[in-house]
């Protein structure tokens, strides 16, 4: 009898697990749970890393908080799920995470065949190379015969193979799982070159004992539009992620900041700001959110420019320029469709 009881229990347990895999209704699931499960990097300074208190911080982590602020009205209700380059889509597609804010490159195959949906591009990046200054390398074309550390399971791995093949250069790839391991191996001299997205290089370099001894080569060998990802087939949830991001852009463009959002939410004479912050119209209800979702997002994390400057901008250790990520009005690519 014991055996039967056990099998019944096991079957019931499996049934329970099986039925939690859902594709539609992510918004309802998150609300019911009272917590957003946000997939982030295992640790990339500036983008998603744990601070001394063990709390996730960074550019991507703040977009997780913005999402939670919009959906649950509380930016702290985020459970961060760290994922490697290899496990991220499996975690997303299996329903273990609700959204992936993890410097993930938007590609055709991932969008179409891996059955995920890219909701936006929150950082326009490109693949670069970092080398120790003492090697005296000035260009990536001089890297023939070098040993190169790459994060395995990423688009950089494919770009690297293509770049060296088309330039007829030989190299030895050293595949590595996380950016921490890459840093250790690069600093130990296991490889001459570390290649990943240029933003990631700058972020890693900021954590080196002597960042000045390393240079990032001028060649950018690929387009790496990084953005949030959701599962295929839940359009409402995809819309929420897309417009949370657009909101941070729109806020920057219209001068809404963390400091003045409370004041502006009472109503301004710009109708678009009023629609974004919920003083006018009912955009929130159309998304299935509260009327003041926009106010809560900006109050929690600020606008795009504020998030950028706080974590990866010029005044941080990472020191990235806005570059392609400036607003379109300043010659960059960041551009939000209108809120109407």
């Amino acid at each position, binding site marked *: 009898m014991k*055996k*039967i009881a056990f*099998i*019944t229990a*096991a*079957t019931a347990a*499996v*049934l329970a697990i*099986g039925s939690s*895999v859902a*594709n539609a209704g992510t918004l309802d699931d998150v609300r019911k749970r009272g917590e957003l499960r946000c997939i982030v990097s295992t640790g990339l300074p500036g983008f998603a890393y744990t601070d001394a208190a063990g709390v996730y911080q960074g550019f991507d982590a703040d977009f997780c908080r913005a999402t939670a602020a919009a959906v649950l009205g509380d930016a702290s209700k985020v459970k961060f799920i760290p994922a490697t*380059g*290899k496990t991220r*889509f*499996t975690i997303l*597609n299996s329903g273990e995470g609700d959204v992936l804010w993890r410097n993930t490159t938007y590609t055709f*195959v*991932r969008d179409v*065949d*891996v*059955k995920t949906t890219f909701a936006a591009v929150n950082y326009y990046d490109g693949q670069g190379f970092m080398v120790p200054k003492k*090697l005296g390398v000035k260009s990536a074309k*001089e*890297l023939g*015969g*070098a*040993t190169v550390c790459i994060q*395995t*399971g*990423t688009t950089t*791995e*494919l770009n*690297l*193979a*293509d770049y*060296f*093949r088309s330039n007829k250069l030989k*190299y*030895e*790839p*050293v*595949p*590595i*799982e996380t950016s921490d391991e890459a840093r250790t*191996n690069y600093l*130990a*001299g*296991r490889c*001459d070159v570390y290649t990943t997205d240029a933003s990631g290089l700058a972020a890693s370099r900021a954590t080196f004992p002597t960042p000045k001894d390393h240079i990032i080569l001028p060649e950018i060998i690929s387009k790496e539009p990084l953005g949030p990802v959701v*599962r*295929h*087939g839940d359009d409402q949830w995809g819309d929420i992620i897309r417009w949370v991001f657009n909101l941070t852009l729109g806020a920057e463009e219209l001068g809404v900041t963390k400091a003045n959002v409370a004041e502006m939410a009472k109503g301004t004479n710009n109708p678009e700001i009023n629609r974004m912050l919920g003083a006018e119209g009912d955009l929130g209800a159309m998304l299935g959110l509260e009327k003041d979702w926009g106010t809560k997002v900006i109050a929690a994390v600020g606008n795009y420019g504020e998030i950028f400057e706080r974590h990866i901008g010029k005044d941080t250790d990472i020191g990235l320029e806005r570059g392609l990520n400036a607003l379109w009005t300043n010659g960059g690519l960041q551009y939000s469709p209108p809120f109407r």
Partner: protein
Amino acid sequence: MNMTTADHDVDGRSALSKIWNNREARSVILQIITMALLIGFFAFIISNAVANLAAVGKTFSYDFLSEPASYDINQSLIAYTSRDTHFRAGLVGLINTGLVAACGVVLATILGFILGVLRLSPNYLLNRISYCFIEFTRNVPVLLHILLIHGIMVHSLPHPKVANTEFNIADLFFLSNRGVFAPKPIMQDLLWLTIIAFVIGIAFTVWFKRYAKIIKDETGKIYPVFLIGLAAIIGFPALVFIITGAPVTWDVPTFGRFNFSGGVVLLPEFMALWLALSLYTSAFIAEIVRAGILSVSHGQWEAAGALGIRRGRILNLVIIPQALRVIIPPLTSQYLNLTKNSSLAIAIGYMDVVATIGGISLMQTGKEMETMILVIAIYLAISLLISMFMNWYNKRIKLVER
């Protein structure tokens, strides 16, 4: 059989309870229920997977295997470029798994036998050293061994630039944190004579062994078969090699701008995985060998000694054949463990079958289900092959009872 069923009729119990109280019938019912639940369980898992794949709109297909893999692999025993297919990339990984498993099995067996014998040594110091080594090695998880050895190689060994001038043997072998570099032999025309000599040596040894056995059975005269075999297999080809003027040139590694080029290299990832797996498994093998030797009763030594057989021969002819019967079955499972543990390669980036087809290919194509099924099937096949071989060997050395 339960003979009291008739009484139950009198008691007026229901037919159902009668069946239930019959031990045989009950056992059949329980087995049927268990089977039904088991089948239901697997049917549910499969249908769940199919339904979920369909729900996210994924198809199940192995077509990706013929697409270009587009990534490079740093250690490949067969020709491979990033333009080759995922299938070939998987094959490269499979060969790398095979390489590290085969090298690991050989080294673990040699080390294990030495350690096991030392462990029984009457010399106190040797005995204790072996004991400490075995206990330390087998009580630390193998993943930590791998990370430890890899860490030591990458962090403690010198950069190739330093190795080029300081850490080398005769400017031929270089020890660096990018691996061990050694000259690579390149065949010249006359080398085939040496190869022929080698084949002749083997053939001669096989024939001589049979001949020696016949002579031994007839006259009792014993030839030193091992030494003569050694001379035929190693000495004779070596002689031919020298006479033909050593027809091999060496491709010596030279330091370029970043790294050594030319020669052969053992990457630190391979070395770390190989050494860690071998050391870890050798500790278990040592204990198996010790158990095997101790299982042969001391009386066997004394009986053989009383017949006037020398100590070395007693070991060869009496003790080891009996000990092997005890050693082989658990040794098989150690070989299987070593092979399966080699999948921990992923931790240090050794490109085995898990890292290629079950890692990068999985990631680049998004075919989790397909690639994982493939990897599982491959490990299952390798393990079953090893088991088959060891079972055959076990049968061969089994004591023939009359």
